[in-house]
């Protein structure tokens, strides 16, 4: 054992740490991850980026926080008790008077704000007021894109999470216990996967009031089967490896064998598919919205914008910018997925 005496300088890295280092070495994938995470974090603070209410208003010696609190128009010298429309040229004028000031978000429109004071007819082309133009109801397109991106990504994250959870649990049960359990579960999956998903969605959206939660539940019910098959195959392979047999011979219980020995070694396909599942989920939501079966009306959504773009073919800015956002999002996810797949490829070495 001459190698025993060899001094080692490098710290020990677990297989997942080594995979992470391989991932980092893929610059395209790594920067895609960084940019994507940046965009998601930014979109989480969308209210600070794109909002029709100013963050802080200083009006006649008093400080107001319209972003968190409603103030009637009368507060700022208007005529009505209704909530102030801060885009109203009259209010703007009052806020700009001596000593008064208001700090607006960089894009002073919310996702639902109708710009009643647009200088052009709806849908308005990109102007100084609406940088990306407006849609056919006069809502600012940039605001819609920011909020729509957020909805899509959060929805995709939630759908991926539930899909992974269900897929791993069902796959683990089938693969670990095998035999009759496996047989019964496989037949159930065959029946379940032959249900027409789209028709069920149409039926359910007719029966229940459409909501994002309902959509999430319905899509989750069908989104776990592919992953379940992969996890099942990994479990079937891993459970007959010698280290599992050795653990059995040591008297380790089933639960510990699953969680400590087989599961960590079976997650490679799960991790590899995460970005692809995300992009699949984003596309699914977009297409359902496009068909009008998705999120409830009024929710900012990329699919709904695409549908508007189709209906207003002259308003190129709607379809072009939405298309751009979708392509960038999906491309980032695909680059990440490719890099992840390479990093987790067992045939690749560290060199």
């Amino acid at each position, binding site marked *: *054992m001459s*190698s*025993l*005496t060899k*001094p*080692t300088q490098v*710290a*020990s*890295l*677990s*297989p*997942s740490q080594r995979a992470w280092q391989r991932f980092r070495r893929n610059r395209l994938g790594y920067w895609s991850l960084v940019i994507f995470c940046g965009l998601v974090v930014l979109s989480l603070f969308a209210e600070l980026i794109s909002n029709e209410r100013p963050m802080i208003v200083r009006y006649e010696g008093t400080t107001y926080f319209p972003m968190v609190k409603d103030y009637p128009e009368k507060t700022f010298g208007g005529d009505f008790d209704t909530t102030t429309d801060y885009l109203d040229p009259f209010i703007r004028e009052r806020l700009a008077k001596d000593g008064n000031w208001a700090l607006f978000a960089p894009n002073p429109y919310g996702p639902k704000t109708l710009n009643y004071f647009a200088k052009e007819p709806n849908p308005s082309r990109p102007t100084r007021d609406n940088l990306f133009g407006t849609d056919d109801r006069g809502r600012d397109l940039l605001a819609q894109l920011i909020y729509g991106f957020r909805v899509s990504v959060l929805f995709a994250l939630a759908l991926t999470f539930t899909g992974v959870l269900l897929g791993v649990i069902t796959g683990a049960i089938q693969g670990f216990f095998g035999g009759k359990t496996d047989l019964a579960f496989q037949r159930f999956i065959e029946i379940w996967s032959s249900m027409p998903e789209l028709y069920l969605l149409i039926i359910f959206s007719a029966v229940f009031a459409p909501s994002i939660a309902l959509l999430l539940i319905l899509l989750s019910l069908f989104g776990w089967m592919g992953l379940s098959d992969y996890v099942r195959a990994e479990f079937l392979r891993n459970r007959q*490896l*010698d*280290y599992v*047999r*050795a*653990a*059995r*011979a*040591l*008297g*380790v*219980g*089933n639960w510990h064998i699953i969680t*400590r*020995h087989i599961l*960590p*070694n079976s997650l490679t396909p799960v991790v590899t598919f995460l970005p692809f599942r995300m992009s699949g989920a984003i596309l699914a939501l977009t297409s359902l919205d496009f068909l009008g079966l998705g999120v409830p009306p009024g929710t900012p959504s990329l699919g709904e914008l695409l549908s508007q773009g189709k209906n207003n073919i002259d308003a190129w800015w709607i379809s072009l910018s939405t298309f751009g956002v979708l392509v960038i999002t999906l491309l980032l996810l695909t680059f990440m997925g490719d890099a992840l797949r390479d990093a987790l490829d067992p045939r690749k070495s560290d*060199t």
Partner: protein
Amino acid sequence: MSSFRTPLLDVKGLRVSFGGNEVVKGIDFSIAPGEKLALVGESGSGKTVTALSLLRLVTNASLSGSARFAGARMDGGQTPVDLMTMPEQALRGIRGRDIAMIFQEPMTALNPLFTIGDQIAEIIQLKQGLAPVECARVAIKLIADTGISEAARRARSYPHQLSGGQRQRAMIAMALACKPKLLLADEPTTALDVTVRGQILDLLTSLQKEYGMAVLMITHDLNLVRQFADRVAVMEKGLIVEQGPTAAVFANPQHPYTVKLIDSKPLRDVAEALAPTPAAPLVDAKGLGVNYPVPLPGFRGWFGKGQFAALKQVNCQVKPGQTLGVIGESGSGKSTLALAVLGLLTFSGELTVMEKTWSSNTQQDKDMRRTLQVVFQDPFSSLSPRLTIEEIVGEGLLVHFPELSTDQRREKVVDALADVGIESAQLQGLLARYPHEFSGGQRQRIAIARALVVQPQVLVLDEPTSALDVTIQKQVLQLLQRLQRDRGLSYLLITHDVDVIRAMAHDVIVMKDGEIVESGPISTVFDAPSNDYTRTLLKSTE
């Protein structure tokens, strides 16, 4: 061989590297026409890469040096060509016709979708341009030459329909289809059972004589070299450290590595059994049987499954402080026996381990699990790749001694590792390391430590050394012998290697097709075998 003749192949300064990592570091050797040269070394010594690079079959490697080959038939054959620099297209003419190759694993080297007759005929058609009917006829003759009975019928068989030995014969027939001047044989017998190995070697020897071709045999098996080769070249870490006539090298090895290799036959160093021991056996099996379900052919397979008896009516006893050796070829049911004794398979018959039997309840079996531990064959799959050494070795303690504190547990893990010769003083941060950082021999030691940490009385050793290099094998066997002497452990040793049994066992069971063909104390079975099968098995390693 006469040194006046021009060598058939003359290799000078051959270097092979993969992305800056040099695996063959400038080697020189030559083969005379009709000579049998053996290239010997352990795994990773670069011997297979050397053979593959002679035909430039290694991908992504940069080659340098020269390999002058004087047997190319296309230009009269007398002017030597350099295999390293000649154009790919010309080299393609040499491959398979003037230099042929046979591989270790015939199952993967043959195309599963074509009959072996078609595969051999394809070579003949490609290289000699005969008519298809003629090719088929020649193919059948070649198959018959390699000693396969009913050659015409076998030519229509697919690889999976043949036995391992027949497949390797078919590979040889394919390699010899164009009567090559040089045959590269890469571990041609390693994947085969011991009784078949001898036959294949005899076949190669007789065909070599008949065809007058030179053979470059790549192997790690010194028995084979001794029987087969005229000359031997010993490779270590990409360098040829010694070469010369076989008899001279074996009689008087010069290089320390050669000495070590030749000296690697395991020695017997165990406490011999005295008079018949009165103590009760630790493991006692009576009429043990294991059946596997197998699909029935045809329509009946829709409704039921057949039974394949992997183990039939096996009786065996493991005595305290002694080793019961189980020897047999692949498919003889010896590993099934190990799994049944460990209670990892459902079995019929009677089995007691220290007067207890397996239930299917994990909690109830806990004490039995502690007394009976296992070491598996493949050190690469027997350690979970995502656990640290501390977690792997300490796992048994978590199950059987949950009252230990973390520090006490760590202490026991370190002790167990030190017992098997893995010292934390030499390996920084040993406990936090992962299995991939250890060599095969070290991993096998860790696997032994994992079994020992719960202080078992019986170890089931399922081919504990067959995945290891010969020198490492010897060290691991010495370790097992020491542990037996120090701790009075009993072993159930499963192996296909007669040398290992000879070095370790007190009692022997010889198995074939799930049945015991002969059993008894090692002296009786090995010195005076009563069964024909035992005799062939013993003869194959002499």
